[in-house]
């Protein structure tokens, strides 16, 4: 189902960004046939996707009216018009329901189609039911007459934020996650047209559903798991030499995965042999970096794949739950902390006339002093981040 239909508002309150128009439409329907000079039709003009048709639908629903939709060609179809305009009395009493006539996109009535326009004007004069007309552009001369007989409301373009918020609401209801940058760019591209934005969102969501971030993460891991399984469990085979060619995972990541999981598969001598291979692979990696001699990559690859595979005595059975490598993340977090520690030590060192290195050496005790004394934190002008660091350090 199209989301533009699925999420079309059914209450005035749900309509985004057109409060003024909504208010005028309510008054128009409320006053219809009650005030002597009240007009019989209201013309909603505005760019596409701003909610004109929706407002008509909601107006019918909220006022418990039956909606009759007419298009430009219907206007020359006498029978159809009569059917709409002259309802049988018993039908009215039977359902006890009034009618609301919607004529969508009146600017679609071509200039040649004089008859259509005349019929429209006649309809508005004779109708017993309120008529809502919608149009994109209404400033053509041919509509002069029409503008006179209608109450006229111009809808504003929806702004970027209104569109973006609506898209986010829809995604929430659909239980989908799409990168906020994508949502923003859809909203910006829509230029005020909410319908276009919702359609774009649905199209992209379809693609994203397959390409969903979490899913793709899982696929990646599956291919890593496959590599680990082949290396750790199977007999060493020559095909292992190309095993890293069939994954989009960078070799650095694979290296870490293997490192993390060697102890999960191998023990004692096998473990020592496998780690020796890892060590050799790393030596060649270091040589590649330092000498920019990429031919060494061959050796790194062989040690990492075949070398580690050949570290076991015989193929392994059973299922191993491979662990996600955490070392790099831990190192990154430790570096972040070390930065804060150093900043605190610098502030402290200068304040008490000692070197930063000495402050760092004495830090465990200094930390205890600063941590428990807000006045000192103020004295040293520690910022919130630095204080937070002290508080979470044990």
């Amino acid at each position, binding site marked *: 189902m199209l989301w533009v239909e699925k999420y079309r508002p059914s209450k005035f309150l749900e309509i985004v960004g057109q409060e003024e128009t909504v208010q005028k439409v309510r008054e128009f329907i409320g006053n219809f046939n009650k005030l002597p000079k009240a007009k019989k039709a209201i013309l909603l003009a505005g760019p596409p996707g701003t909610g004109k048709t929706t407002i008509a639908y909601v107006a019918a629903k909220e006022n418990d009216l039956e909606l009759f939709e007419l298009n430009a060609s219907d206007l020359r179809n006498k029978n159809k018009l009569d059917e709409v305009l002259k309802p049988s009395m018993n039908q009215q009493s039977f359902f006890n329901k009034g009618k609301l006539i919607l004529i969508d996109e009146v600017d679609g009535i071509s200039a040649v189609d004089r008859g259509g326009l005349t019929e429209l004007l006649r309809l508005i004069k004779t109708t017993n039911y309120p008529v809502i007309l919608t149009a994109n552009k209404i400033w053509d001369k041919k509509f002069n007459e029409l503008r006179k007989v209608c109450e006229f409301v111009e809808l504003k373009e929806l702004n970027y934020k209104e569109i973006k918020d609506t898209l986010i609401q829809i995604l929430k209801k659909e239980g989908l996650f799409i990168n906020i940058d994508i949502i923003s760019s859809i909203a910006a591209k829509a230029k005020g047209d909410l319908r276009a934005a919702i359609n774009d969102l649905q199209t992209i969501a379809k693609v994203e559903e397959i390409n969903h971030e979490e899913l793709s993460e899982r696929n990646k891991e599956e291919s890593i798991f496959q590599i680990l399984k082949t290396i750790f469990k199977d007999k060493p085979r020559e095909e292992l030499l190309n095993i890293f060619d069939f994954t989009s995972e960078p070799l650095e990541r694979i290296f870490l995965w293997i*490192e993390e999981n060697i*102890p999960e598969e191998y023990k*004692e*001598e096998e*473990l*020592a042999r496998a*780690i*020796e291979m*890892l*060590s050799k692979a*790393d*030596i060649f*990696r*270091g*040589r590649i*970096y330092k000498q920019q001699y990429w031919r060494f990559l061959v050796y790194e690859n062989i040690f990492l794949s075949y070398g580690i595979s050949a570290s076991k005595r015989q193929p392994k059975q059973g299922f191993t739950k491979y662990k996600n490598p955490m*070392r790099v993340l*831990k*190192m990154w977090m*430790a570096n972040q902390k*070390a930065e804060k*520690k150093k900043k605190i030590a610098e502030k402290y*060192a200068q*304040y*008490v*006339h*000692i*070197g*930063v*290195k*000495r402050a760092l050496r*004495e830090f*465990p*005790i*200094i930390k*205890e*002093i600063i*941590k*428990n*004394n807000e*006045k*000192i934190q103020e*004295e040293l002008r520690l910022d919130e981040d630095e204080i937070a660091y002290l508080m979470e350090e044990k």
Partner: protein
Amino acid sequence: MAVSEIWTEKYRPSTFEEVVGQEEVVKRVKSLTDSLNIPHLLFAGPAGTGKSTMALIIVKTLYGDKWRENYLELNASDERGINIVREKVKNFARTKSIGEVSFKVIFLDEADALTPEAQQALRRTMENYSSTCRFILSCNYSSKIIDPIQSRCAIFRFKLLEKKDIEKYLMKIAEAENLTISPEAIDEIYEGSEGDCRRATNILQATASISQNITPELVRTIISNAKPKDIRVVLDYALAGDFREAKDKLLDIMLKESISGQDVIKAIQKEIWNLPVEPEIKVKLTEKTGEIEFRIVEGSDPFIQLEALLASFVLAGLGKE
């Protein structure tokens, strides 16, 4: 300026009379300072014996309230290279001193962190600005300062503070801060301080931040928590065959203490001699350690190489190395 809440500052002696210990040094420095003219000075002695404090007392005596304008404090181990030191000295020495004393004072802490070449450069700087500046250099060992600098300075040797001096100082703080402290607790602090008065004061304040009642147990807890984690526990796990635990502990220690792979190798190499293994195993492990140190230089990821070393320890523990 408000009184600092940091006790090493709050209770730092600001007159010669308040200084504990170092009677000889105090007497001579005081008479020099009273003459309102001092030569370049070299303060040699262990950390926390009053070298920086003495420099501060000198400038406060010389300049009174204006001491900040006439005093530059540098730390040789923090400044990146002698050129930075020279640049800072140049900027500071460009303007004349404020007040009746005709020179400014530059305190260069940890001067023995400078290489002999850098010290030569420093010597020239001292000469260039000798008409407007006096240098006070501080170091742990005067032997690490080149002779030409030593010969241009009046040398003062600061002794390690005696227990009674530190005790006196701590008692003064305890009284002012309304702390209850037992003689045993003082003993513990003194032990932990290793004669470093700054460290003793910090231990006291860290303990007092937990309780006004300073007990020996509390002091011991503070001190032992502050000790750097030992690499030995990593080796013990490896020898017991628990590779994963050993490597996790190793990573923890490296990250927590921010130490490099090379530092770890050094520590392991020393620790091998304390391990409960046969002499021939010690030799084999040392050989492996040397090989790994070499690989760390060659490779790209020191931790992988250390893991390889731990794997050797696991084998040694199994009697298979």
